[in-house]
């Protein structure tokens, strides 16, 4: 499946402008990738909402068993689950009015993508929310990564 259509930098930047992010499959284990991402997003001022039926609280935030249990609006649904879980998550993301479905590295589900697209929300696939934030807003350039940003604009210090 051609994924570049779901990695458009303009959509990525728009998703990063959202402030409330539900993280489906956020682990309480601080060595797991999902925990790295949750920690980082919280540090950078996002309100994170853990979705994990096996935990009560992660990173100081109450956990919800599913997306539909979350009170209030959600901007981005960030997914750290196996691909076969994605179609249901996409349906729930539509049900709660989320604006973006974000599928992390390797979470690739054609069916899930199509459900979200048909429901009218933007989908980002096989990208890491933390890395994309660091590329466009943060400090990724401090560790020698290729941000692909070419600009003579003076930024605010980060």
């Amino acid at each position: 499946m051609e994924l570049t259509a779901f990695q458009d930098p303009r959509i990525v930047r728009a998703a990063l402008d959202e402030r409330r992010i539900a993280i489906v499959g956020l682990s309480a284990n601080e060595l797991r990738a999902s925990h790295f991402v949750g920690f980082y997003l919280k540090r950078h001022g996002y309100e994170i909402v853990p979705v994990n039926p096996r935990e009560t609280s992660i990173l100081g935030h109450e956990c919800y068993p599913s997306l539909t249990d979350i009170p209030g609006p959600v901007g981005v649904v960030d997914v750290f689950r196996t691909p076969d879980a994605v179609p249901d998550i996409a349906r729930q993301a539509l049900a709660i009015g989320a604006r973006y479905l974000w599928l992390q590295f390797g979470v690739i589900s054609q069916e899930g993508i199509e459900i979200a697209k048909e429901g009218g929300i933007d989908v980002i696939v096989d990208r890491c929310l933390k890395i994309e934030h660091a590329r466009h807003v943060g400090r990724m350039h401090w560790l020698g990564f290729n941000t692909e940003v070419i600009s003579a604009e003076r930024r605010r210090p980060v």
Partner: protein
Amino acid sequence: MSTDREFGFHTRSVHAGSRPEPTTGARALPIYQTTSYVFEDPESAAAYFNLQEYGNTYSRIMNPTVAALEERIANLEGGVGAVCFASGMAAQTAAFFTLLDPGDHVVSSAALYGGTISQLKHLFRKLSVELSFVDPDDLDGWRAAVRPNTKLLFAETIGNPGGNVLDIEAVAGIAHDHGAPLMVDNTFATPFLCRPMSWGADIVVYSATKFLGGHGTSIGGAVVDSGEFDWSNGRFPVVAEPSNAYHGLAFHETFGAYGYLMKLRAETLRDLGAAMSPFNAFLFAQGIETLPLRMRKHVENAAALADHLSRHDKVLQVSYPGLSDSTYAPLVDKYLPDGPGAVFCFDLAGGREDGQKFIRALNLFSHLANVGDAKSLVIHPATTTHRQLSDAELAAAGIGPGTIRLSVGIEDAEDLIWDLERGLAAIG
């Protein structure tokens, strides 16, 4: 305004990695001559060391001037990132060290820089890594040398000094058939002439000392990763499994396409310690601003000199792959359409004695052990750069007793030809 335009190579040579400094507005790349960085608060300090946040801790591991150079090289190469080192040899050592374990096996081209051949033979023996050298032109030889424990294939884009041109796509295919990455030393081509990753190479290493810096001022090296290799294919627990050297972090799962580079930096550079100095990084970054301009002139001059020498009756043979009768012409057309670099060898009929007479009579060419300077350089490999090699290894690397290596600079071609004629007139 940030844009989504795909900028050209010249633009990226000047801009990539170096945006205006946010605090002062300085437009040139600042030299951050500091060992260490004050943390905002204890939580930030812990987050940096845990790799949960991108932050500066200590200049052995990262430095903003070096990072600008790393991003520039990675951008030009088309990789996901780069890590720079104190030398090309240090970069190579670290690239190997990060992905190999004792008992692994490496298949390498035999036509390499002499220092690399020595490094592979002696370093790998001490690390209990098995090694096979193959003729880089012999694809069946590459295939036959691969074993169940082969974890890496290694070669130079343009062999030093024999001028072998690697069939990158074919050798990458052999590597990937066996679930192993291909690492290519692209020092002689630079990303302006060839981008091995676009042909399937997974890791590219550089001696930045040469054409990237371009002015013979600084020693340095770089490792660039394409981010494409699947380190979780079951054959690389050293990259994919939780690491004892970093409190149980699983680099590939946690950092995805950036996992190998994070491990290379946070573990290997940390432990081997061969960090690039910020001042050298500044000089390399400035050098790269003119890389495309310089490489065009290097190649134009090299082609003119190779052509002149190939028609000279005191010259037995010229091994510039850009000559139309070179056996490498089809590979040059495919991989190096703007020219196969500016380092090549030729053989004088009179062997070692003629070689020394020739070098003594030159005026413009500098007799020294380096390549890739704006100034033209000359050396006799058998008694210098490749001195530690046996006769058989010399032959495999394409070096005879009368072989002279030139690194053609960006002076006027007519002046360089005048100088070569002085050298040739001095011999029999």
